[in-house]
């Protein structure tokens, strides 16, 4: 089992450790619900050092990404700007979802999922042929996400003035290299905050400073309920190589314009669209008591679908889910929970933003 630079800190903090894609990671440090609420109301930090940071450099870095990614890196004009994109196979299935930061036309930083590391790297290397670019894995970096309404202020309280002067003006979805650190105003919770990448040898010092500033550690359990409330997809659960972005709520991340940009998977997606997309990706809210779980069957007048991610929403006090259902599914459906049918409401796949319910 692999360990991040924060492994000892997790044990010292009383974490219950689990296997996550070959990494021994904290699921919670006592109470997942309390950690969830801490992030929604104040601030918490997540060890995300198992995620894979890649630096792409070279004269043809941009043309390479224009081919590799379904979203269009040509939208990125300002240094530090981030873009969320799917990386597709030729059949239009999702190999991974990732964040790419634009540093210059010849330098990008890419963050991909831990569980897909080997296949992502193999695919990206394979597509490199004929392009003058180099891909470097930055396993020398540790990564922490600090999230919550007070996250930024608490991070600023630890920074020298000259560094804060650079970090404070960062707008959402922008990052900046500040000394040996890369600081980005991004995250996976629906709250404000930063994702911090820094040399792994600073891990213990940074952890202690953040805890000292009132930012307690938060496990992968709360990370999952937070992202689900925020309506953010989880790779391998909500989409994979057998599902296209069009049936995974990720149509908005496909850049169809300009039409002459031949990104990998484009032809398959165009064919899927022309034939009529058969399914849609929705949110579900259970009306009674109970908890929605992954793979539960969804029945509506238009046919059957499946829950891709289900949980109990600590912020809303009801069960919520992301689901793939027939395109003609209306506003109501039934969920099979251990053999009994329960009514649920079909909503847009987002439930909580900045601590507030977005359900009408």
């Amino acid at each position, binding site marked *: 089992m692999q360990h991040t630079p924060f492994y000892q800190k997790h044990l010292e903090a009383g974490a219950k450790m689990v296997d996550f894609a070959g990494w021994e990671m904290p699921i919670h440090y006592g109470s997942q619900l309390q950690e969830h609420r801490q992030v929604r109301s104040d601030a918490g930090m997540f060890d995300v050092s198992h995620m894979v940071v890649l630096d792409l450099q070279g004269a043809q870095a941009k043309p390479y990404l224009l081919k590799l990614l379904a979203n269009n890196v040509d939208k990125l004009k300002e240094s530090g700007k981030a873009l969320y994109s799917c990386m597709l196979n030729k059949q239009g299935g999702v190999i991974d979802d990732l964040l790419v930061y634009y540093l210059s036309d010849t330098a990008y930083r890419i963050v991909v999922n831990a569980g897909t590391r080997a296949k992502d790297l193999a695919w990206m290397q394979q597509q490199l042929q004929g392009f003058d670019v180099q891909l470097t894995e930055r396993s020398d970096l540790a990564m922490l996400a600090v999230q919550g309404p007070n996250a930024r202020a608490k991070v600023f309280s630890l920074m020298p003035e000259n560094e804060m002067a650079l970090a404070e003006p960062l707008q959402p979805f922008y990052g900046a290299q500040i000394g040996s650190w890369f600081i980005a105003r991004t995250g996976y919770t629906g709250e404000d905050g930063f994702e911090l990448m820094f040399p792994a040898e600073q891990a213990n010092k940074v952890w202690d400073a953040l805890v000292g500033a009132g930012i307690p550690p938060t496990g992968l359990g709360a990370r999952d*309920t937070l992202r689900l409330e925020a309506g953010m997809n989880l790779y391998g659960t909500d989409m994979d190589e057998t599902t296209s972005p069009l049936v995974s709520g990720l149509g908005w991340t496909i850049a169809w314009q300009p039409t002459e940009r031949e990104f990998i998977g484009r032809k398959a997606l165009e064919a899927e669209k022309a034939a009529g997309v058969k399914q849609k990706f929705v949110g579900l809210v259970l009306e009674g008591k109970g908890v929605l779980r992954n793979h539960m069957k969804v029945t509506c007048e238009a046919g059957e679908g499946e829950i891709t991610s289900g949980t109990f929403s600590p912020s809303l006090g009801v069960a919520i889910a992301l689901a793939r259902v027939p395109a003609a599914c209306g506003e109501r459906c039934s969920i099979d929970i251990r053999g009994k049918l329960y009514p649920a409401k079909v909503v847009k796949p987002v439930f909580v933003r900045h601590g507030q319910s977005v359900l009408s």
Partner: protein
Amino acid sequence: MSKVPANLKYADSHEWVRDNGDGTVTIGITDHAQALLGDLVFVELPEVGANLTTGTECGVVESVKAASDIYAPISGEVVEVNEELDGSPELVNSDPYETGWIFKLKPADASEVAALLTAEAYGELVASEA
């Protein structure tokens, strides 16, 4: 280490049983069981008046992480359920042996209670599963 009070009896399906001395027993899930489940968010209680048979599913405890059936550790009639758990399922986490009790049963056969695991035997079972 999870708590295993010496004055209770246990089922290998991780329920505890307290003899109330008035012809009824109180039943809940053990500290070990609640710790494995994590934060509970929902408890489906048995119905008052229901006649249960040893080993049958009679309720569900759901945490953020998973759902787990509650089994009747002995046969008998359900005489009371802990309705506090409707609004405060977390009592099962914070106080599994007292305010986090789940239901009360009038045993069909008192010898069934005596035949349940002792605290010592249950403690060994938990240790062997770890």
